[in-house]
């Protein structure tokens, strides 16, 4: 124990010495703190209040949205706005009242600001007034000393050069809700917007960008003396869509004044060239908030401008469904391309008579001619033989119904009835239900997008999937190879018969859409008309074969037309729907004709992703439209 007796006292002495030194050091820290925090508090408090260097976050510029050539579909416009830093004013409410007196504020806006004064964190600048003109700015400058904490700042608002024409597909942005701003402090920054619909919503994350920091030197009045450092953050990425602004304008113009939709797909790669829905709405209004009167007028408009008919409009497709019935029957083997049915102008089933549109009848007729002349009776027979389940399965296979990875929010899947569905719904499914199913009436509900997809698949025999986003930044989202879609593995002879029928619809004098044949030499379009009744005509009207054109507008049939072209080497597929347009051949087919002609006579080669064309030459050319 000798060692322990020697060593332990030394250790104890020295450890206590160290402890005393440590205690002393903490004492120094404590006294220093006391001096700074208690004795010199006044000096530092003043420094804190008049802290001359101020850092605040600024909202980044939102990414651009372009069409396939780089034409701007959504961009940003700078404007001046008055902001307010609450902490820099001794009495914030008084400053707001003075501001309202000097520059002029809506009473509702003043109420909103007063609410924000209490609710918002006091270190986030508050928006007092957007879109200042030079007069407002001059007034603020003159009264700067009366308005401590008020400063003028550059903000950005969203602009949509194509406005209503692209509103549904491009979408719109709006201020974040209070819940969103609370969940993500970055969204609380003035100027931040959230995509609420269309591409703006689906690609919101890419478009949003990274906020920047502004370092400013402020004087005792809180006025910015100079900007020391400005990091504008990183603008959101540019989203390139597959759309063609020129074609979209043509579609919008041809549809304008009516309610309808037009969808055009590049059959080779599934790129959506046009997706138009009329009537449209002004998407820029959402950026600042839609005025109540405008909102009410949209909501009360019987033509529902807010609804996107191209992806969410559900229609009974009428005769444009017949290619699907034909393919289902041919593939099931219940008919062959040579099978003929006799059409006397009607089909009697029990005590009910189903008329052909042509009450005089088509005589003996095969599938090609039945498509050409849109004979209903042929498809009544075909539907009875094949049954609804196989028709529904074919509709799903052709992309007429079902989920499509389009890249837009809330796309309707469409609906085709099946026997299982009827059983679950406890419906008494009669043969009559199946019969009208064969000509695209009854429970059938499909979107124009579904019709265009079906057309593209019939044209190519491949499972083409439409999509609207082509690239983000400089990255391509989809591969560009034409042959990447899997084969539908339909019998080539079945496809050939249906394509031949659709070819004859447009290019033979007896075809229902002969009037819409292309004027391009050597280029042919294949298509199918559709006219779907929305009103159950009375027996008397049926017998009188009353012209639908004499009916009131809302009882007139919906008009449809689907087409692909060139018929023997398909490049584009199109579907046009015109609500209450009366007849597919006269209301919808000419629009498809114009779109196809325009598409085939222009170079559809897209610019590399990330390209932005500042002067939208393409757009103005498109907007002037064809003669």
């Amino acid at each position, binding site marked *: *124990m000798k*060692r*322990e007796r*020697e*060593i*332990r*006292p*030394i*250790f*104890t*002495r*020295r*450890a*206590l010495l*160290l*402890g005393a030194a*440590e*205690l002393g*050091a*903490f004492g*120094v*820290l*404590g006294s*220093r*703190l*006391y001096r*700074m*925090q*208690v004795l*010199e*508090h006044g*000096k*530092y*408090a003043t*420094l*804190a*209040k008049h*802290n001359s*260097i*101020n*850092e*605040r976050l600024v909202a980044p510029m939102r990414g651009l949205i372009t069409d396939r050539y780089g034409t701007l579909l959504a961009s940003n416009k700078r404007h001046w706005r008055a902001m307010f830093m609450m*902490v820099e004013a001794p009495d914030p409410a008084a400053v707001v009242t003075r501001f309202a007196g000097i520059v002029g504020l809506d009473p509702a806006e003043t109420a909103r600001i007063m609410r924000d004064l209490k609710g918002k*964190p*006091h*270190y986030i600048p508050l928006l007092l007034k957007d879109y200042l003109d030079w007069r407002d700015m001059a007034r603020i400058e003159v009264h700067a000393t009366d308005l401590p904490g008020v400063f003028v700042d550059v903000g950005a608002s969203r602009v949509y050069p194509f406005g209503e024409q692209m509103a549904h597909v491009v979408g719109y942005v709006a201020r974040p809700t209070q819940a969103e701003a609370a969940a993500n*402090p970055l969204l609380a920054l003035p100027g931040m917007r959230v995509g609420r619909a269309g591409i703006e919503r689906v690609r919101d994350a890419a478009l949003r960008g990274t906020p920047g920091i502004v*370092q400013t030197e402020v004087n005792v009045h809180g006025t910015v003396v100079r900007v*020391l450092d400005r990091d504008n953050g990183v603008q959101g990425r540019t989203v390139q869509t597959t759309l063609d602004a020129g074609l979209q304008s043509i579609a919008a113009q041809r549809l304008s004044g009516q309610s309808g939709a037009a969808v055009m797909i590049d059959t080779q790669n599934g790129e959506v060239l046009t997706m138009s829905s009329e009537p449209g709405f002004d998407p820029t209004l959402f950026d600042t908030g839609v005025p109540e009167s405008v909102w009410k007028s949209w909501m009360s408009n019987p033509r529902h401008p807010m609804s996107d008919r191209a992806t969410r409009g559900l229609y009974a497709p009428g005769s444009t469904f017949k290619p699907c019935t034909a393919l289902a029957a041919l593939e099931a083997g219940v008919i062959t391309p040579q099978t003929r049915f006799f059409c006397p102008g009607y089909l009697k089933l029990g005590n009910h008579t189903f008329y052909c549109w042509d009450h005089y009848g088509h005589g003996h007729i095969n599938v090609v001619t039945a498509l050409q002349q849109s004979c209903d009776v042929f498809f009544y027979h075909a539907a009875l033989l094949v049954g609804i389940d196989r028709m529904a399965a074919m509709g799903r296979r052709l992309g007429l119904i079902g989920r499509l990875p389009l890249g837009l929010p809330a796309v309707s899947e469409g609906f085709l009835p099946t026997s299982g569905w009827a059983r679950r719904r406890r419906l008494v499914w009669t043969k009559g239900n199946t019969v009208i199913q064969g000509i695209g009436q009854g429970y059938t509900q499909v979107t124009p997008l579904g019709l265009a997809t079906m057309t593209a698949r019939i044209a190519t025999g491949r499972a083409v999937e439409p999509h609207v986003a082509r690239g983000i930044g400089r990255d391509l989202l989809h591969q560009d190879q034409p042959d990447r879609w899997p084969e539908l593995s339909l019998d080539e002879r079945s496809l050939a018969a249906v394509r031949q029928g659709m070819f004859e619809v447009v290019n033979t004098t007896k075809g229902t859409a002969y009037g819409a044949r292309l004027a391009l030499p050597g280029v042919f379009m294949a298509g199918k008309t559709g006219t779907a009744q929305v009103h159950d005509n009375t027996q008397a009207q049926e017998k009188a074969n009353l012209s639908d054109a004499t009916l009131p507008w809302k009882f007139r049939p919906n008009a449809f037309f689907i087409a692909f072209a060139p018929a023997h080497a398909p490049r584009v597929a199109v579907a046009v729907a015109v609500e209450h347009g009366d007849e597919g051949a006269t209301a919808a087919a000419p629009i498809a004709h114009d779109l196809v002609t325009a598409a085939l006579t222009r170079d559809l080669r897209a610019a590399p992703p990330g390209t932005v064309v500042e002067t939208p030459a393409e757009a103005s050319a498109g907007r002037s439209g064809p003669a």
Partner: protein
Amino acid sequence: MTPLLTDKTYRPYYERGTGIPAKLLRMNWLFVLACCAVAGIGYAALYSAAGGHGQPYATPQIERFFAALIMMIAIAMVDIRLIAKMAWPLYGLGLLLLVAVWKFGHVGLGAKRWLDVGGVHLQPSELMKLFLALALGAWFQRASHEQVGNPLFLVPPALTILLPAALILKEPNLGTAVITMSIGGAVMFGAGVRWWKFAIVLALVAVIAPFAYHHLHGYQKERILTFLHPGRDPLGAGYNIIQSKIALGSGGMWGQGYLHGSQNQLNFLPEKQTDFVFTIIAEEFGFAGSAVLLSILLSMVAMATYTALRCRHQFGRLVAIGISTNLFLYCFVNLAMVMGLIPVGGVPLPLVSYGGSALTAVMLGFGVLMSVHVHRDVEFEAADSQ
């Protein structure tokens, strides 16, 4: 001079329970409570740093703390004699890790201090401070008073200190290198190395310092110059220290109120959740709040010193004094830096600053300290007591 603690309190170790429950009862729970209190204050500060949110700092940090707390208690159960046996292998491991950092380290903020091990950020210099105390403790464990007086006997421990210090300096991490050497010095001081030898070393440092200054990195020189003239570059290197002082001073006696510190909430201080976290507490809770935190930290240093004094074997005493010195230096360097007393030097406030590596290393050290406390009366080999 008689020992402070007489043998009256002594009962042979074998008469005491050696099971886990008995060991748990022997732990210094007041110290554990103090740890939790400091971590709780840290949680509040980090919550405020995020503008009143648990994410991204406060919640992950408190989760890490509880994991580290369990680890600390587990280590406290390990027999101190086993730890003594492991001392040199651990020291070797620490050196290897430092070399690994030097060779393949992760570069952050211009310095290679980090090592990624299976996704975990590891700062070996933090571990090295503990391993150094263990190694020196093991070296002096059986040394007699005469041996300690022999200069040749002191050459190996001096090298033991200088080798890791040089590697840490190379990272470069001047602050941690100085702290590492100070810990080594404190252990050697406790072991009884003569006063005049320390005087010689300090004199040497004073002579070398001006030359060494020229070899400092640009940012290190900048920090020292800034410390000497804070107003020199108010927006550059001096910015942090000025803003930090304003934050402290504007706190006053009772603070600006929780979540209402203007400097903190206005984001005047970048990276305030790490090294400058004390400014949040000082600004929002005032002198009253910072004094409470200071007192708890001081009481922890005192408790660690008490453990060293109370221990009946030289290894435990030296290790405990090393760990208490580490805790003290951490707190002192960080607080003095925030108050503008010494140059800014990248030292976090233990258990409060955001960051997992420092927290884990500190709690590891506390675990060993608790093991010393639990095993304060064990007897090393019988030959020892002769």
